[in-house]
């Protein structure tokens, strides 16, 4: 009975806005708002394209609708992977991080031209990589990058692909520099003050990113790019693969950190309460900084040429890495409960009802968090070495990361967009009910798709394949049938696509609307226990940076040395696939030829002149 009254109370608060109106981000930082907006729009474009490719490949591999040859599937899959997990996530991240730094330090960026410069650099890089990938759709261009987002050698992409990735990453490095610069400037004016939590999150995440990207930068700049240009003949596939995963695991946390940030600083605010604990949040981010890189080898349990010992170390580190995620789950739930009780919620479970479920921002994030818990569970299973043998490279794996990056991150970003876009445009969210339906649809679609993918994976159905239907054998489905699993995957994919369409409808509807006074004020959640309760050492970024580097050195020196010792720096005479590099080497040859010709004729002319003079 008391529940009913609570519900009513909750409803009245919801039907208006639960947050106070006031100065938006756009009002306060008009120049920065423009940058953040551009970053988010780039990210949405990537999401739209990636989503389109997602449904095409879903229907193709489940054999419901095939609009292309199976050979083309891998171009689509490369585009889906790269656009979504490189472009969509990271463009969104730089937008949110810029918001977080400026808002929490309460200062403008130091030099807006530099801010635009890094966004421009990232965009140029993304465009180059995208061009190389999309060129794979046409035979008229001798260019392709059908290497999937992991680009394992000896599979080779056009140099433009590697170059684009490099430029993109350099852009993110510049962005990090921009945020550090803001912090240094702020520190000078506020000596002795604690780093505001959102900025702290940005800085620790970026330190992790600098450490992690060293791996992929080395792989590309020292090996893959020169190799694709024909400057070196061969690479060591295990070395470039290991360097990729040096980066490939922490990049997962790079996607997750902005989502975590939203859960820590926005979610409690939306649920009407405060963040449970500031120190705990700091500890979580420090743990991620320290632990996320020295675990990459857990992606290589099945690789020959890497000793069992190194694999065990990676596995143990990975298990520790569960800790910060568990802490996050705990803090976030505790903060939501606080919020709910502030709103009049009571009871052991009853408080859940007092949460603003009708607010799409809140609902989206909370559902994303729920999926993350499921994803964490399937991730724990992945991380065990023995089970990994069963599910490695099966559909189980995409099942897992559509829960994590595909929902925990993507759904949080979409829900957060419903909060950010009004902040950045000063316009009221167009149609909250549609937005609410959108986030719920994503949740439902992903439940179908990911669940069926996990089950198909257990049957041994591989990932990354255009036709998981084979001639020689059939999968032994324990419960249900393969056809049923395929149907669920396809159904899930279609619901997800529908959800995306609604998302863009809401975003476009909002952007096309007119300025409104009814936009909530910019800000983020207060904390129940603030920074004053957390040890000062947590803010010692130099210390954490140093420790992170030491841990990486410990975890990677021996594996890398042993890989180089076995296969050599450039591998045992490895031939590139597909062999399409001739254009570039030919271009080189032409340039060389031209240079020699010019040189020869120049010497001839000189010789003639000298001869003439002498005569």
């Amino acid at each position, binding site marked *: 009975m008391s529940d009913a009254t609570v519900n009513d109370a909750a409803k009245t608060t919801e039907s208006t806005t639960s947050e106070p109106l006031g100065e938006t981000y756009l009002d306060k930082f008009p120049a920065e708002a423009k940058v953040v907006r551009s970053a988010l729009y780039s990210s949405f474009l990537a999401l739209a394209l990636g989503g389109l490719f997602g449904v095409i490949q879903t229907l193709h591999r489940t054999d419901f609708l095939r609009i292309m040859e199976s050979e083309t599937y891998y171009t689509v899959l490369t585009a889906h992977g790269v656009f979504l997990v490189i472009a969509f996530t990271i463009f969104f991240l730089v937008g949110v991080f810029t918001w977080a730094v400026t808002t929490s330090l309460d200062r403008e960026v130091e030099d807006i031209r530099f801010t635009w410069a890094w966004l421009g650099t990232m965009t140029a890089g993304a465009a180059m990589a995208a061009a190389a990938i999309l060129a794979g759709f046409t035979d008229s261009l001798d260019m392709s990058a059908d290497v999937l987002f992991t680009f394992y050698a000896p599979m080779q992409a056009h140099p433009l692909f590697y170059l684009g990735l490099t430029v993109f990453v350099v852009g993110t490095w510049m962005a990090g520099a921009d945020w550090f610069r803001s912090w240094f400037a702020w520190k000078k004016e506020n000596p002795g003050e604690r780093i505001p939590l959102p900025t702290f999150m940005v800085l620790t995440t970026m330190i992790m990113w600098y450490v992690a990207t060293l791996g992929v930068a080395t792989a590309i700049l020292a090996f893959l790019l020169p190799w694709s240009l024909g400057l070196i003949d061969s690479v060591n596939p295990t070395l470039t693969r290991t360097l990729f995963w040096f980066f490939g695991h922490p990049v997962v946390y790079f996607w997750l950190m902005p989502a975590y940030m939203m859960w820590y600083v926005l979610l409690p605010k939306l649920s009407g309460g405060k963040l449970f604990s500031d120190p705990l949040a700091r500890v979580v981010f420090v743990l991620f900084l320290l632990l996320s890189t020295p675990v990459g080898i857990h992606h290589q349990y099945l690789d020959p040429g890497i*000793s069992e010992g190194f694999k065990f170390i990676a596995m143990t580190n990975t298990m520790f890495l569960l800790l910060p995620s568990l802490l996050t789950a705990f803090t976030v739930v505790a903060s939501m409960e606080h919020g709910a009780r502030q709103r009049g919620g009571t009871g052991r479970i009853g408080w859940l009802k007092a949460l603003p479920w009708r607010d799409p921002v809140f609902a989206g994030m909370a559902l994303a968090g729920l999926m993350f818990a499921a994803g964490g569970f399937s991730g724990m299973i992945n991380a065990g070495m023995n089970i990994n043998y069963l599910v*490695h490279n099966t559909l189980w794996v995409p099942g897992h990361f559509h829960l994590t990056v595909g929902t925990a991150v993507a759904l949080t970003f979409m829900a957060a967009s419903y909060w950010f876009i009004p902040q950045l445009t000063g316009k009221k969210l167009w149609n909250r009910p549609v937005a609410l339906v959108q986030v719920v649809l994503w949740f439902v679609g992903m439940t179908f798709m990911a669940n069926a993918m996990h089950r198909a994976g257990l049957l041994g159905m591989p990932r990354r394949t255009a036709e998981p239907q084979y001639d020689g054998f059939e999968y032994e489905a324990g419960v249900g049938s393969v056809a049923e699993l395929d149907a669920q995957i396809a159904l899930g994919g279609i619901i997800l696509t529908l959800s995306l369409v609604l998302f863009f409808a809401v975003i476009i509807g909002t952007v096309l609307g007119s300025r409104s006074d009814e936009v909530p004020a910019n800000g983020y959640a207060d904390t129940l226990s603030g920074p004053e309760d957390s040890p000062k050492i947590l803010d010692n970024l130099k210390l954490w940076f140093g420790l992170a580097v030491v841990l990486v050195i410990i975890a990677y020196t021996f594996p890398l040395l042993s890989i180089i010792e076995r296969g050599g720096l450039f591998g045992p005479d490895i031939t590139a696939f597909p062999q399409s590099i001739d254009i570039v080497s030919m271009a080189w040859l032409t340039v060389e030829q031209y240079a020699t010709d010019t040189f020869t004729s120049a010497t001839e002319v000189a010789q003639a002149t000298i001869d003439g003079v002498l005569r």
Partner: protein
Amino acid sequence: MVLIVGIIATITYGTVGLGIAMVDDEEDTISPSELDEDERFSDPRVEQVGENEYEAYVVAQTFIYQPDPIEVPEDSEVTFYVTSRDVIHSFSLVGTNVNTMVVPGEVSSVTAEFDEPAEYGVICNEYCGSGHHDMEGMLYVVPEDEFDLTELSVTADDEVELGDDATFDVTVENGQLDDLETAIELEVGDETIEEDVTVPGDDTYETTLTVDSTDLGEGDHDWTVTVDDHTESGTLSVVEDLEDDEDDEDGGDDDE
């Protein structure tokens, strides 16, 4: 607490169904362009190395496996040595945890126990190029009495002169460690010759069977040599006069 139990459970759980050991760096590296000179991989095959112990040397390349199919007996422990001629592939028995990456330059070794007759699909689950989805093979675990590692080869005359002996050089190779007791049977025309043989383990038996061509008569005679369920066959021409080479060749061509 739940977490700790969960962690321990995940770490220890595994090795269900097929007992397997982890892929690691035990094997030496190998140059992918020199597989044809390698003792193990120039001739991809299954070999017996102990009682109930077998080794399979497998080459993966875009987009096939060699050998295909792979045949092993029930109640056996098989170590697969797999390498790649080109890009990274995988060697994965569908629905089991025999699943390893196959990296050019490296040899993956995986040991599995097969208790009962079964059929397994072998697939490549690491993207290896535009035909990745076509890369499949089969592994048959066959009943013990249907399994052998026997290889039969026959060299025979194409043509003999009426009245001469036609010879058939038969080689039976026994790849298994136990002795192989069997019979070689030659059928040519209406003639049948049988020889009981015992081929020692891991050894080769050679014999020459002869048939008097007078018994066959002039003309073409199809022949088959059978050892268990292995057969070799061909055609023998018995001609009046071998000297007349040119003419006969023309005639031979017409026959074909």
